[in-house]
């Protein structure tokens, strides 16, 4: 027993010594940042340049990245948080990743930035506070362990979300169909018009059996029928007014797949599938992504669907070598999901939250630093043009390509050549045109019905692709699907969501 005690004591001593050495070694503090969705193979030169800039700015911070990828970010982030890892100071967070902003603020894993006792935002983040619009800060206000406040810095990117049709106008013209002859102003309803159907038919007749005019992912097209997600697994929705998404002010949430609108959509899509307008690969979750991307990139489609982002017309047209048009479906919407689409939080286990905040502030406000981190080095990864835009050097860019929309404040970056010099100005106007729904700030907390949600998600996955792409007969599969959802506790989830929603409105 004595020996054991001695060993334990010496271990503690040794660890203490080690920790002591580390903090004493350098005056500058290292801030480790975990990013999402990066594709970075070689970063030494970029990190060195970023650190040189941080030194120039006098922040006293050394930046060290961990390049999380799409596939491993969730595990990396939640493991770091759940194991009180003090080696990660700042991490990407949002409404759709596993280290969910609202949930982990509630469990105390993120530092409250506007904590009245230690207001980091006021101390080091005034520049950043001004750089990011107030509406985003409002959307990031959440109830955490230290009361209602800001637990993360919103990513300043597109926060108004627009759904759009993706029309290959080159092919439409080849068919002799005027773009305007289809009434795109109808939004989602255009799907049911004879003109829409005739265009698909004409394309199928002209380009032969291996051409599939209608192309989309299973999810967004179902959204195009004027529904709006209220949860992360797409089970629930509330019906908003396409002309004024902020109405109704106190909506209730219903189960999406129980609605007559959904049935109507399925009947139509089944008809389209039977007519050969949809590729069978779209119903296979393993192939759908590859097949869709390939068809879009090659221009082998007539009409598709897209979550639109400003400037995509130009980019898509250039990439695909066609005249791609994106008629919007309804107004731009600002929702909790779109506001909390990206952000950065300081981990509660970070030993240097002050330095982390200093770093974030510099990154969000200094154009040079932000450009180095998002684009790389001038001359190596990109070249600068006379009009202020940048052109990427493809071979090098492939080795250093962080996900731009996840790179903090993207509005201080120089625009790319394909989108033109005024891109970000126009982008801002477009963002501001979005209308906030009544649900902004509300996030469904699945914890009380977590078993049901998990069961429902697997039922949904079983049916989603085949039903939504019309490969199975809705007359048979839909009742089956609905029965399974009901059997797995859909009603409890709907009731719980509405209870939470009421509480949300009451607290407002």
């Amino acid at each position: 027993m004595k020996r054991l005690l001695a060993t334990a004591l010496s271990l503690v001593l040794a660890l203490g010594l080690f920790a002591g050495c580390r903090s004493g070694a350098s005056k500058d503090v290292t801030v480790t940042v975990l990013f999402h969705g990066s594709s970075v193979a070689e970063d030494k030169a970029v990190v060195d340049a970023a650190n040189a800039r941080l030194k120039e700015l006098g922040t006293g911070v050394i930046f060290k990245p961990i390049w999380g990828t799409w596939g491993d970010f969730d595990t990396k982030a939640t493991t770091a948080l759940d194991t009180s890892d003090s080696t990660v100071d700042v991490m990407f967070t949002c409404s759709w990743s596993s280290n969910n902003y609202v949930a982990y603020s509630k469990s105390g894993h993120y530092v409250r930035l506007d904590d009245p006792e230690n207001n980091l935002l006021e101390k080091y983040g005034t520049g950043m506070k001004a750089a990011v619009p107030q509406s985003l800060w409002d959307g990031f206000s959440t109830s955490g362990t230290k009361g209602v406040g800001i637990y993360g810095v919103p990513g300043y990117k597109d926060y108004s979300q627009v759904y759009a049709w993706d029309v290959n106008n080159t092919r439409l013209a080849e068919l002799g169909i005027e773009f305007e002859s289809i009434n795109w102003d109808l939004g989602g309803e255009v799907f049911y018009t004879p003109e829409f159907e005739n265009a698909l038919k004409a394309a199928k007749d002209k380009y032969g059996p291996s051409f599939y005019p209608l192309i989309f992912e299973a999810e967004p097209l179902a959204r195009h029928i004027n529904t709006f997600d209220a949860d992360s697994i797409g089970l629930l929705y509330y019906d908003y007014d396409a002309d004024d998404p902020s109405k109704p002010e106190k909506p209730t949430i219903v189960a999406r797949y129980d609605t007559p609108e959904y049935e109507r959509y399925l009947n139509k899509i089944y008809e389209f599938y039977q007519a050969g307008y949809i590729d069978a690969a779209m119903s296979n979750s393993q192939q759908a992504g590859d097949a869709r991307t390939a068809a879009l990139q090659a221009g082998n489609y007539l009409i598709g669907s897209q979550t639109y982002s400003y400037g995509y017309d130009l980019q898509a047209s250039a990439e695909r070598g066609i005249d791609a048009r994106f008629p919007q479906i309804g107004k731009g919407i600002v929702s909790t999901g779109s506001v909390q689409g990206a952000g950065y939080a300081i981990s509660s286990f970070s030993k240097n939250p002050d330095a982390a905040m200093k770093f974030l502030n510099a990154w969000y406000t200094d154009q040079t630093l932000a450009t180095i981190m998002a684009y790389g080095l001038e001359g190596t990864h990109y070249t600068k043009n006379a009009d202020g835009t940048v052109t990427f050097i493809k071979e090098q860019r492939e080795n250093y390509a962080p996900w731009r929309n996840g790179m903090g404040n993207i509005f201080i970056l120089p625009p790319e050549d394909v989108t033109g010099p005024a891109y970000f100005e126009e982008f801002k106007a477009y963002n501001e045109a979005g209308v906030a729904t009544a649900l902004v700030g509300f996030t469904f907390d699945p914890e009380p019905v977590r078993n049901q949600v998990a069961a429902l998600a697997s039922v949904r996955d079983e049916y989603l692709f085949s039903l939504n792409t019309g490969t199975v007969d809705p007359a048979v599969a839909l009742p089956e699907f609905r029965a399974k959802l009901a059997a797995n506790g859909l009603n409890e989830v709907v009731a719980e969501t509405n209870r939470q929603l009421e509480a949300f409105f009451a607290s407002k």
Partner: protein
Amino acid sequence: MQGITKRKGARLNSVSLPASVAINTILGAFALCCIIPFIFVVIISFTDKESIIANGYSFFPSAWSLAAYDVAIKLGRQLWLSYFNSFLITVIGTVFSVLICILYSYGLYRTDYKYRTFFAFFSFFTMMFGGGLAPTVMVCRNLLGMNNNYWALIGPLLVSPFNFIVMRTFFKSSVPEEIIESSSIDGSGEYRTLFQIVMPIAKPGIATIALMNALSYWNEWYLSLLYLSDSKFYPLQYLLMMMQRNIEFIIKNSSVLGKDAIDLAANMPSASLRMALCVFIVVPIAFAYPFFQRYIVAGLTVGSVKG
């Protein structure tokens, strides 16, 4: 096998012809089930990208192509580095894990070892109760220093209580205690007894454990996900896994990522590239089988005490 050609009942222990045919058919079919998916993987890896898009996966693709291997080779430094890492952790890991397994289970096997029941329970206990992911990671990372180094990939798999039990049972059934006794009478020390007398007899068991350990080291990717953030330590399996997970993620979340997803998906490796990497992964370890198999088959016929 010879039972088929000889007349029924001609050989001792041979089965009847119909039984032999039935057994061979069943085992043959089973072997086919195992090998066909891999052949399919190889075919896909040589399939032209356009052909996959047009016709989907097929055993008889309309066009062949070496493009996937070309791209894989062009992954360049990372590919070879990952290959090297995989080999390194497999070789070092297997050698040490087998050594630890032999030493531990030999102790458990020796009836004259005083604390054997305690240590048997000590290892067995960890099979029944685990600490869960978070505490395990905390101990490994913070106390044992498994953070961005090869140690993080080798350490966690070094000790396997299940293998201890298998190995101890193997010692018990193939190494008679009389041999230990006679060795010590002849003046052999403990080390000589273990390494020069017991181990040669136990070769088949050791080969089995070595094969299992080599496989688990070669196929390991989850440890990389937990403990690594620097790509210079990534093993090959993790490289492949990451591609796969990236693609799955983007497909699943395409509605959230919107236009980003399209851009990203366009830069993702194609199905044939993934299959090519799969071939890269499978081929070396497949060559390990025949090597180990020699010992495993020999184990069926080896004996120690004669008469």
